[in-house]
């Protein structure tokens, strides 16, 4: 990358596109000329050195793996594959260049290293772009690439920059580049401070190599490293709590439906996991339908999936209750066997209907990525799931406390005969309660489809955990379920770094077993005579 950036800034202003085009051609063709990534990388650098913005789309096509070389004349085109032929278009003008058989062109291979080179080159090309976002990306790209050649371009860009945060980012990028250059030590020390002030993991990566050895720079760097590290330790701790809560929220979601069917009704529903699975598959179907019929709303498909999953899983729950479980009231252990049979049937039905392999459920854009909370990177999908699980729990509590259905439900489960005597249709209440529990499991399935496999085995992996959560929290107590899920999640996550994931899980199980020996009715034990029955 010999001085190309310096030239680039000038060229950007001076060179007309028409003149550049003819210059670019041989450079573009050079992308496909060499063999191996080294040759291609040199060609990328040469292309970027022209500073011609027209090169940007070519580079982007390269990074996307869309460039092909025509073997007959060695020319490089954008090739779109269609079965066994390629439709070629000119890389610069986008003009149609005919078709070529698969054997007549070679696709130009791209790997991570090349992609990094392209990102760096693109960064320099877009440093003064009119879009703020592009300028930020460019600065970030240079920061990661630590390209010493970019210092002057950055100086110019910082000069022209009007947005404070972008200018800041550019200064950090400049500092990174300075560290990587052969500039005087004093300047580097200053740069190390700027980088250290950034305070995140990227800064740590950058500073770490300079922290060893002696001298002022090493001191400044190691001071920066230790400052960042102690900050990161704190953040790690906070993040661990977040992971714990997030795992807890998953447990809560899986258990909450069971807290209704098992906790309130006393039905040991081994098919509970399959209700979760049905919820996840409903999400898959809803997404498929929306992709076909309402692609504009696709980003909100989960919102549509929620009621659908609730209804589908709820309806299946009602059917199971009416068909099987109602004959088995008073024989809790036998419902276990029957529902186990149901779970086998549901699993295999899913397998024959949707196939045995995983189904893809995509994440909406508003659930992807992370947000930065005081330096801790919280993943959005986990955050959404935490709030969602709490919302479901509160919603359920509201239903149970304030609706007449909730009242009837509590009445029927606390004293069935008395409730019936008061005119409550207890069979109907039973069916609805079971439907409600199953529906909630369906809702959980929508959420879990975002973090786990959507496969026929989905439910199986949650069934034991969810039973433990309900029992640990105290059967019949929703607050207990919440506390149990969250504490198990956090304990698990704090054990994990020391014991490893496998042992942590075993330890949590053993802890729960021991706890139940101590308090056989769980954290929030229900009191009264009904408990003994």
């Amino acid at each position: 990358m010999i001085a190309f950036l310096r030239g680039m800034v000038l060229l950007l202003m001076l060179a007309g596109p028409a003149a550049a085009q003819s210059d670019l051609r041989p450079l573009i063709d050079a992308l496909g000329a060499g063999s191996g990534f080294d040759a291609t990388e040199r060609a990328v650098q040469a292309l970027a050195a022209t500073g011609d913005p027209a090169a940007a789309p070519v580079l982007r096509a390269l990074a996307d793996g869309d460039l092909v070389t025509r073997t007959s004349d060695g020319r490089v085109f954008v090739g779109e594959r269609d079965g066994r032929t390629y439709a070629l278009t000119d890389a610069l003008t986008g003009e149609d260049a005919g078709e070529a058989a698969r054997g007549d062109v070679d696709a130009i291979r791209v790997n991570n290293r090349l992609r990094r080179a392209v990102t760096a080159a693109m960064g320099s090309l877009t440093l003064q772009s009119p879009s703020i976002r592009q300028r930020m990306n460019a600065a970030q790209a240079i920061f990661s690439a630590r390209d010493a050649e970019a210092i002057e371009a950055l100086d110019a860009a910082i000069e022209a920059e009007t947005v404070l945060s972008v200018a800041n980012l550019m200064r950090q990028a400049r500092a990174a580049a300075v560290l990587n250059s052969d500039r005087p030590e004093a300047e580097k020390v200053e740069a190390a401070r700027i980088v250290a002030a950034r305070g995140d993991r990227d800064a740590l990566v950058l500073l770490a190599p300079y922290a060893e050895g002696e001298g002022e720079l090493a001191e400044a760097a190691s001071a920066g490293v230790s400052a960042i590290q102690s900050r990161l330790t704190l953040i790690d701790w906070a993040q661990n709590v977040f992971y714990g809560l997030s795992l807890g929220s998953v447990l809560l979601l899986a258990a909450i439906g069971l807290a209704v069917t098992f906790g309130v009704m006393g039905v040991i529903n081994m098919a509970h996991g399959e209700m979760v699975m049905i919820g996840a598959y409903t999400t898959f179907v809803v997404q498929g339908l929306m992709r076909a019929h309402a692609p504009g709303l696709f980003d909100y498909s989960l919102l549509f999936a929620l009621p659908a999953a609730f209804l589908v899983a709820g309806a299946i729950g009602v059917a199971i209750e009416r068909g099987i479980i109602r004959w088995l009231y008073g024989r809790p252990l036998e419902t276990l066997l029957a529902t186990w049979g149901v779970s086998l049937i549901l699993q295999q039905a899913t397998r024959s209907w949707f196939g045995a392999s995983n189904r893809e459920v995509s994440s909406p854009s508003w659930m992807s990525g992370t947000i930065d909370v005081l330096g801790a990177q919280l993943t959005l999908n986990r955050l959404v799931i935490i709030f969602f699980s709490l919302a479901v729990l509160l919603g359920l509590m509201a239903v149970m406390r304030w609706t007449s259905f909730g009242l009837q439900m509590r009445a029927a489960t606390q004293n069935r005969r008395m409730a019936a005597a008061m005119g409550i249709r207890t069979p109907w209440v039973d069916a609805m309660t079971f439907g409600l529990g199953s529906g909630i499991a369906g809702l959980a399935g929508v959420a879990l489809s975002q973090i786990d496999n959507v496969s026929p085995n989905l439910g199986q992996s949650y069934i034991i955990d969810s039973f433990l959560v309900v029992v640990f929290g105290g059967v019949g107590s929703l607050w207990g379920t919440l506390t149990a899920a969250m504490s198990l999640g956090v304990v698990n996550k704090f054990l994990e770094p020391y014991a490893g994931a496998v042992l942590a899980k075993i330890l949590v199980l053993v802890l729960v077993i021991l706890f139940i020996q101590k308090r056989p009715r769980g954290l929030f034990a229900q009191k009264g005579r009904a408990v003994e029955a």
Partner: protein
Amino acid sequence: MITTRLLGNWGGRAFVAILVLAAIFMPLSNAFLSPGDALYVPTTWVVLLGRWLAFALLALALDLVWGYCGILSLGHGAFFALGGYAIGMHMMREIGPRGVYGNPNLPDFMVFLNWSELPWYWWGFGNFWFAALMTMLVPGALAFVFGWFAFRSRVTGVYLSIITQAMTFALMLAFFRNEMGFGGNNGLTDFRDVLGFDLRARETRVALFSITALALATGYLVARAVVTSKLGLVLVAIRDAESRARFLGYRVERFKLFVFTLSAMMAGVAGALYVPQTGIINPGEFAPANSIEAVIWVAVGGRGTLWGAAVGAVLVNAAKSWLTGFAPGLWLFALGGLFVAVTLFLPRGLVGTVEHGWSALTERRRTARDEKGAGEDLASKPAE
């Protein structure tokens, strides 16, 4: 008198008789008949039946605690697997230098994971009798400790079921860990012989079958001895009204602990018989689903009937074997449907229903003369 007590009704007698006959017939058939004969049993079937009988012993053990003491253990597969691991460890040691790496001391999986010496808990398993003892002691000890805590703090009903399930799940995860020194996910395999008999030889297979059949018969007699004793009556009393039994002054937890430990030891023996016939033991045996399935065998056969549980185990396994070959992809529907149907329409299980019908018939005849035969009837009627 003693025979009636131990053998039970017509079903129990037939059950023991069939087992003993099979144990005698199988070696004869295999030694003197050739594949063309009508009564010849191919080795495939000997192996299959032998394994089913091992499952039947597990079901019997489970029925002892569930049918007669109301303890629904969803973790009996753990005891079964521990018994299997104990005998498996012995057979691993028996391989000696014939393993692929030829290391006389270490099993193959330890060699290629660079273990330098045998962990202490493998000591002694080179001796068959020690290992045989362990197949009972290890599951028994686990059951004793687990039960001691659980019954003392009065963990009952579904709570108990769920923590037993958690127990077997935790054990499964633990045995999956390679650091445990039990071969991790692959478990113990590549067995050669036991007590000098080649495991792949037809004769050994037949002998194993006969031993399993006799063990099952013995298990049945032991279980009968327990349930027909005074202790058995207390167990039934605990099953039907635990608090009442406690108020009458019985130390409920001791009775439970005794029968739970005994049952675990029987399950351990079942596992020890199962593994040589299967040729592999791995942590999959600890899977909670296996334990639940064992409960289902008991339910299908008939809870609280002992020999019914054994029949249930054989029937369900036969159905499974047949369906997985005959209708792959559909057999889960059939199996799931069977479980649902049995719980809905045959709450006493197959054998229980037949027995109940039978005893109702004799009852009607008897009421004309006298009153009920207390012990017998109580014992065969499960209640919540």
